């Protein structure tokens, strides 16, 4: 399952949603807004997306992850809009029969999301300036 949302991400609900009787391992990844990037102080982030394509890419990542690992359940959720330091911006919850599978599959899903999904963040630095983050550009 994949979701784009403007609401608070509830990691606990995701974790409960993916638990399965035949799965001995659950892994939850939460990406949270960090207060420091290098030496610069972040006070908030704004996330923007190309929603139709972002949902399509997230669905492809889900399908690809299920193809490679015996996933019980998998949820990929990304929040959009204005987030403060400490807020959860992205969550991946997954269950698999065994732990190596759950770790590998969870990590694959978040790595691919960061690489492929058209979502962008804008830094709100402590000095009042803002800056879209475009790695390599």
């Amino acid at each position, binding site marked *: 399952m994949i979701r784009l949302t403007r609401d608070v991400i509830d990691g606990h609900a995701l974790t409960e949603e993916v638990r399965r009787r035949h799965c001995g391992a659950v892994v939850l990844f939460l*990406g949270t807004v960090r207060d420091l990037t290098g030496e610069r102080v972040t006070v908030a982030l704004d*996330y*923007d*997306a*190309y929603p*139709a*394509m*972002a949902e*399509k890419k997230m669905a492809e990542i889900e399908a690809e992850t299920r193809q490679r690992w015996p996933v019980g359940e998998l949820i990929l959720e*990304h929040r959009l809009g204005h987030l403060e330091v400490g807020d959860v*911006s*992205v969550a991946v919850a997954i269950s698999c029969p065994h732990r190596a599978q759950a770790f590998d599959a969870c990590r694959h899903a*978040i790595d691919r*999301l*960061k*690489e*492929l*999904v*058209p*979502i*962008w*963040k*804008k830094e709100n630095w402590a000095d009042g300036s803002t800056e*879209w*983050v*475009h*790695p*390599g*550009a």
Partner: protein
Amino acid sequence: MKVLLFARARDLVGADWIDIESAATVGEVRARLKERYRHLSGLVEKSALAVNNEFADDLTPIPAGAEVALLPPVSGG
């Protein structure tokens, strides 16, 4: 034809999308964007283009009525 803009590209142009002369391929779209919006050309160079919600290389043809978007390097997560 319409090209959707996001993030820094949208801020640089000051609009959610721009209208350019019809182009047959993604490469032509890229060339027109660079020609017409000079202050965008550095970012266009580093951006991907999407046709109908799929990443597309410069040789990809653009079907009639396709949704075309300029995607600066992503930073979600």
